[in-house]
């Protein structure tokens, strides 16, 4: 649990009033762009960075001033940081030495840990003899073998290639579930965050933008930043013209969008004249020959990106406005061609009204 944690580096505030409670046994991901403070927060949790003000509690105990080697945490580093001059067995046994285990206990625990990460019998090898994925798993084993209270992972998968990354994501999740340990995971890869976490906390410039289950965050982002960071939405900027039973938002001199009143998120209610961003997920729009939907605009297909299992169309709507639309392949929809004239449309419930980013509020 973090309470009002602050951290400065010189003039820059790295972590700004960070407050968060992480639940037992959950895997919570700190997600954000580079420099948003997520790694700093993680390192403060481990004790590798000092806290300028505020406190960090683990299981109710205030650890803010406790030195690193007494915090009983397990940490997996981005570059694994395995001890190159020790065998795998010694790497794992290292942490146990400070916990007063007998030789038999140590051997048993190490073997169990190796079994847990699916590398039994690797005890005699040296880190340099292992592949990237194997080293990663050993790093994980090393952090877990000491039976820590919390597990911390600092972008552990960023050095692996795509396929391996996908595989390891599932592995890590499986292991985390099996052990049932509270875990904090740091990454800038939103796919990782979405697929692995119980909850995600999105950070930017040292602050938490939004916390919630992956689905919530994707479907109901609370700000333009969050919407932009997760997925690749269409963002339309406009001004509220009226807000009686529904929003009518003008996006330029001739075009209007209708959105539901419930689909707005902000602390203060929106009022007429406010500048807003409309978040429109590309998979929620449709392309048709005719204008079918309540929100519908005519345009021409400018770019087609073929991505294997789905297609992304960029539709040019004139006057500088382009919207992206992704459709799954093989659903019986016709594949369109360049230059085709279509209507791109969506229903009011498919778009979200978000505050314009400058102020963060309506």
């Amino acid at each position, binding site marked *: 649990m973090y309470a009002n944690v602050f951290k400065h580096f010189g003039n820059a505030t790295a972590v700004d009033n960070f407050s968060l409670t992480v639940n037992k046994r959950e895997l919570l991901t700190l997600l954000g762009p580079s420099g948003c403070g997520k790694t700093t927060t993680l390192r403060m949790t*481990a*004790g*590798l960075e000092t806290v300028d003000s505020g406190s960090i509690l683990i299981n109710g105990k205030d650890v803010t001033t406790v*030195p*690193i*080697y*007494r*915090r*009983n*945490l*397990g*940490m997996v*580093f*981005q*570059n694994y*940081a*395995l*001890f*190159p*001059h020790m065998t795998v067995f010694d790497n794992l046994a*290292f*942490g146990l*030495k*400070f*916990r007063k285990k007998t030789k038999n206990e140590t051997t048993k625990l190490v073997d169990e840990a190796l079994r847990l990460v699916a590398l039994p019998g690797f005890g005699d090898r*040296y*880190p*340099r003899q292992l592949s990237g994925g194997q080293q990663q798993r050993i790093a994980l084993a*090393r*952090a877990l073998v*000491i039976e820590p209270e919390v597990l*911390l992972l600092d972008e552990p998968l960023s050095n692996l290639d795509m396929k391996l990354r996908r595989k390891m994501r599932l592995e890590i999740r499986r292991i985390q579930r099996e052990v049932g340990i509270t875990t904090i995971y740091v990454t800038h890869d939103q796919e990782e965050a979405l697929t692995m976490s119980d909850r995600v906390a999105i950070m930017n410039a040292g602050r938490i933008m939004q916390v919630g289950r992956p689905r919530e965050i994707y479907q109901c982002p609370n700000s333009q930043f969050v919407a932009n960071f997760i997925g690749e939405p269409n963002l339309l900027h406009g001004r509220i013209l009226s807000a009686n039973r529904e929003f009518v938002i003008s996006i330029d001199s001739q075009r209007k969008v209708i959105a539901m009143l419930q689909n707005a998120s902000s602390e203060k209610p929106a009022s007429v004249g406010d500048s807003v961003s409309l978040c429109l997920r590309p998979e929620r729009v449709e392309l048709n020959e005719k204008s079918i939907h309540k929100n519908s605009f005519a345009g021409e297909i400018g770019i087609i990106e073929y991505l294997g299992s789905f297609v992304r169309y960029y539709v040019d709507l004139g006057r500088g406005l382009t919207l992206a639309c992704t459709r799954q392949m093989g659903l019986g929809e016709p594949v369109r061609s360049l230059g085709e004239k279509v209507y791109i449309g969506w229903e009011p419930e498919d778009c979200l009204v978000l505050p314009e980013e400058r102020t963060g509020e309506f």
Partner: protein
Amino acid sequence: MKRSSWQLLLIPGAALVGALLVVPLVMLADMSLHRYVPFAPSIVVGGYTLDSYLIFFNPVEAYLRVLYDTLAISLYSVVLTILLGFSIAHFLARTKHVRMRKLVMSITIASFFTGTLVRVYSWVIMLGQGGVVNTVLYALGFERLRLIGTDTAIILGLIHSSLSLAILVLVGSIRNVDPSVEQAAWTLGADPITTFIRITLPLSMPGILAAFVILYAWDATAFLVPMILGAGTHLFIANLIYDKFMSTTNFPMGSAISVVFILISLLFFSLSSALAKKLGRTTHD
């Protein structure tokens, strides 16, 4: 550039060093195998003989003693230098205070640039009868010590002259130890001292070994330090050779001693190279 023409770049270097080094050494070796002719040192007389070598290795003569002195005193000195140097090197490699680091670095480098002669004399001042140490001792009521002419003086001088070099070499190798490995040890429960002993030290071994070799070569071939601070009591090989050539003009003897020493150095050097290679394999990915 053509395929094999870049090898031509090596030729000037190799040729010059070859000419300037090999030829004189061969001449030296040649000289060492001839008989000693008093009063006509550079004249070669008679056939080849191992006389000088036999005299050198004869335990009755004092030559082996000098060799032993040189190697032993240098050993003490190198070990101490590495110990002291490591403390500063570690600070330089790990500290986050930029100003302090630059300050310490400047002092180290400046120390490196002070000439040998200066350095030796500064120690004469420190250790002499009227020098700093003795003045302080006397003021405190103790007897003055005769420090110049002891092996302690030589050791102090050697340490002082090679310390900056040691620091420069060691800093590089400590830097090479990935700090995140140390941090991992901390998170696993190792306090800083344990981490240092079990992680940092083993991983800096290649650098320590390299420093050892360089420093040993530097110290064992010292000339001024043992000459002035040793004041004739503990001769080093270099002094002995000088003496043979200059005072007694026994060129063959001087040459023989030189050859023996060079061979020992080469042996030592290749052994430590092999060891370094072996170590390098276990401490790096």
